[in-house]
């Protein structure tokens, strides 16, 4: 089991590193949020693997919290990053369309 745990740790660490590179380089906020989600999934996997290796269930309630609250960040950012757009087929709201989106283009050159 030690060998397996080591191999899993190496694989997860490599994946974590690659996702971290994506967080750093962006280029946009949404890229970072997606990479952040992957980081979270890898963290959950790492905590579960630790529980499996030591046969100790102390960390499992953390997983519950992470699985429930993890997506809140993406939902919030996704909500504010999308400009309002009239639904196809409905009356257009030209005056309501935000022409300038001050803060949600983070990271764009």
């Amino acid at each position, binding site marked *: 089991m030690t060998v*397996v745990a080591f191999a899993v740790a190496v694989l997860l660490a*490599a*994946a974590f590193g690659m996702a971290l*590179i*994506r967080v750093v380089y962006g280029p*946009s906020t*949404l890229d970072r949020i997606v*990479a952040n989600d992957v980081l979270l999934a890898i963290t959950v*996997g790492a905590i579960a693997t630790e529980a499996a290796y030591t*046969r100790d269930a102390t960390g499992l309630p953390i997983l519950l919290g992470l699985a429930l609250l993890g997506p809140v960040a993406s939902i919030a950012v996704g909500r504010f990053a999308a400009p309002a757009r009239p639904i196809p087929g409905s009356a257009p709201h030209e005056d309501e369309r935000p022409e300038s989106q001050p803060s949600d283009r983070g990271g764009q050159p």
Partner: protein
Amino acid sequence: MNLSDVVNVLAAACLLSGAFLSLAAGLGLLRFPDLLSRMHAATKPQVLGLLLILTGTALRLGTVVDITTLILVGAFQLATAPVAAHMVGRAAYRTVQFRRDLLITDELAAQSPPGQTADSRRPEQS
């Protein structure tokens, strides 16, 4: 070779394949060409990879209390991951953060009313 050995080998296989899927996701995240493609890569460890790792952990722990917790973790993850993915995907499409030249067809752009085609929609690089 008794039962606990078999269970251990199964658990190890689950954990390793889950970790391997996470690695593939990390790689995909790095080298897929645009945001929407990267989001596909991100779904992998969130769904199948996580389910495999949770299964491996459940096999190793093997007590009812822990297994019910793990089932709930899996269920919550399956219920919440698509919501987050949809919100980010919608934002990505509306701010045109994807490469149009990679699309074979775009039936959503055809749906938009005149004057609202994808190209005249708010360009994100201004």
